[in-house]
């Protein structure tokens, strides 16, 4: 849905390289765009996303910052209000909490609170998610929590196309957009159209069509959900997999169309279960297509613990294909 017909062939690339290409492209395309964050320049980015960009684009546009999350996020907000188009990189979602005051109290409020006199066309990128044994202060998935905030938009690119294409659309958006990149996706490789470009940022996508159940997910969990869907298919269960892509606003229409068809739904979300994005999606289904449902809505979320360091415990904390398969079967009445 997002990609133009491929004319100039495809390239083999990674999610990391796709994000890097998007940053490079945006900075070259628009003189108002610059990137700032911790270790984005000389170090090349904590996850090597921005490696090489400093040499290519210079220190004004690839700006290393002190460890002052609130300070440089606020500076991004001010610069955006004054006509620039900053991209702020926060190393991980856990560190973004140090900038939460600026994100919520300034970026999200200024347009409404000022009576539309000022807007904040700012993009904030950050890594999210568990799986690299980084323990309880580097592994959480708080994007659903950010999706609670009125005044910002929240994106979760899960594919190479979205990693490459969402950034430019977000930069052109007149309001603050947060982009969450799941750490387990950076090494993901695959084919991408050589001329891949901007994609929409307000529609969910059907990543696998099916008739028996809707599996609704986003970000790093998309690939686990697709794996689960393949397992289910081997047992003659055709699951439809929805990639939310945008967590705020949510594309209700795509979700409801799918659930109205399959009549069953499981939401897969790497955030904690209580007060989760999965809860929001589930409630919307209840509000809008309750009478179409044949079974209670299921959820596969993270266990309600701080993410632990050992690999076996970390894996047990976050959604895994086997759990998704089990939840889908439960929703299908133990088929």
């Amino acid at each position, binding site marked *: 849905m997002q990609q133009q017909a491929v004319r100039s062939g495809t390239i083999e690339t990674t999610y990391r390289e796709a994000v890097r290409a998007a940053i490079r492209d945006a900075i070259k395309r628009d003189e108002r765009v*610059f990137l700032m964050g911790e270790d984005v320049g000389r170090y090349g980015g904590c996850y090597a996303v921005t490696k090489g960009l400093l040499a290519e684009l210079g220190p*004004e546009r690839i700006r290393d*910052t*002190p460890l*002052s999350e*609130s*300070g*440089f*996020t*606020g*500076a*991004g*907000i*001010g*610069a*955006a*209000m*004054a*006509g*620039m188009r*900053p991209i702020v990189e926060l190393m991980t979602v856990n560190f973004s909490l140090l900038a939460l*005051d*600026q994100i919520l*109290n*300034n970026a999200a409020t*200024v*347009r*409404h*609170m*000022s*009576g*539309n*006199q*000022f*807007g904040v*066309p700012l993009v904030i990128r950050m890594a999210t998610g568990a799986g690299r044994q980084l323990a309880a202060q580097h592994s959480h998935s708080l994007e659903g929590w950010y999706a609670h905030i*009125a*005044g910002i*938009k929240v994106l979760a690119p899960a594919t190479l196309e979205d990693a490459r294409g969402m950034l430019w659309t977000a930069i052109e958006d*007149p*309001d603050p957009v947060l982009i969450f990149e799941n750490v387990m996706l950076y090494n993901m490789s695959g084919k991408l159209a050589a001329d891949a470009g901007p994609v929409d940022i307000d529609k969910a996508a059907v990543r696998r069509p099916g008739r028996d159940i809707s599996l609704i997910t986003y970000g790093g969990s998309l690939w686990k959900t697709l794996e689960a869907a393949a397992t289910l298919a081997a047992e003659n269960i055709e699951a439809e997999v929805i990639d939310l892509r945008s967590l705020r606003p949510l594309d209700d229409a795509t979700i409801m169309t799918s659930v109205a068809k399959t009549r069953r739904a499981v939401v897969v979300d790497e955030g904690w279960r209580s007060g989760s994005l999965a809860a929001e999606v589930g409630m919307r289904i209840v509000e809008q297509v309750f009478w179409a449902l044949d079974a209670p809505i299921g959820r596969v979320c993270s266990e309600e613990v701080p993410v632990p360091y050992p690999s076996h415990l970390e894996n047990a904390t976050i959604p895994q294909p086997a759990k998704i398969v089990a939840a889908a079967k439960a929703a299908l009445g133990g088929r």
Partner: protein
Amino acid sequence: MTAPADKPRLSREHMLDLLKQMIRIRHFEDKCYELYTQEKIRGFMHLYDGEEAIAVGIIPVLEKRDRIVSAYREHGHALVRGVPMTKVMAEMYGKQEGCSRGRGGSMHLFDRATNFYGGNAIVGGGLPLAVGLALADHMQGGDLVIACFFGDGAVAEGEFHESLNLAALWGLPVLFVCENNLYAMGTALALSESETDIQRKAACYRIAAEAVDGMDVVAVEAAARRAVHAVRESRKPYFLECRTYRLRAHSMFDAQLYRDKAEIETWRPKEPIIRFQGWLQSNHMIHPEEVARIEAEADAEVEQAVAFAEAGTWEPVEQLTRFVYADRSVPAGR
């Protein structure tokens, strides 16, 4: 040869204007206090009583194209900057004719026309914003000065230190103005700061700094001329601590249990309007009838502002969710 940019203009006309601006703020806020007791104004409201010399001494030294960020005790800054009193009063009422469509109230006055980037009610929250406004100017090759007003309470926030460091590190044209009224809400400076000589903190970030008697409008203006000139020429930050005192309560909900009435009384004779007026009179620069005229003009302006606010309208509830995000069919500020 032109006069050095940092010398105050001591013409009689200018002196009268300084007095007039301070009286405007005082009379506006006296009226706000009255309107608050009548429940025309609600929410939190923080008055500037005693601190007027700071806004009046600094803001007219800035140019129209310069940018201002303020905190939540910002009625004075907005009025001196030229946000019409009518629109400020309508904002106090919450009417849609207010400078922020009535959505911000006392603590969130915004005005694009005068580059007034808002009252920020998270202590310290405006400083990073000012750094960003300055960063944009730096990257755009401009020559603006970004004036950022905050209180002594902000000095304890991490954002204060992050912002001073960033501004100095990147060479950004921010004039940091600390309005030190000795209390962070009800906590005395000595109870919250290990170093109470606030301007000294700027030296840690290699930022030029000075402290000035913030209740002496002529001294504030002289310091502001030095400061604004320094920022404009050097493209580096500058730190100005204005030492002052808040004669009224922190907000309308404050019983002032944390300070003695006697302490307030020792400060009252130092307050900027009486002091400046007395100085002008003893130097034969003003006649009592001129003071009376200035006061009458201020009262008339306040009266007009109240009438404007009273006649103002409530934003229709149907528009509640408008401008949470940009409405691309409506021309926005940006």
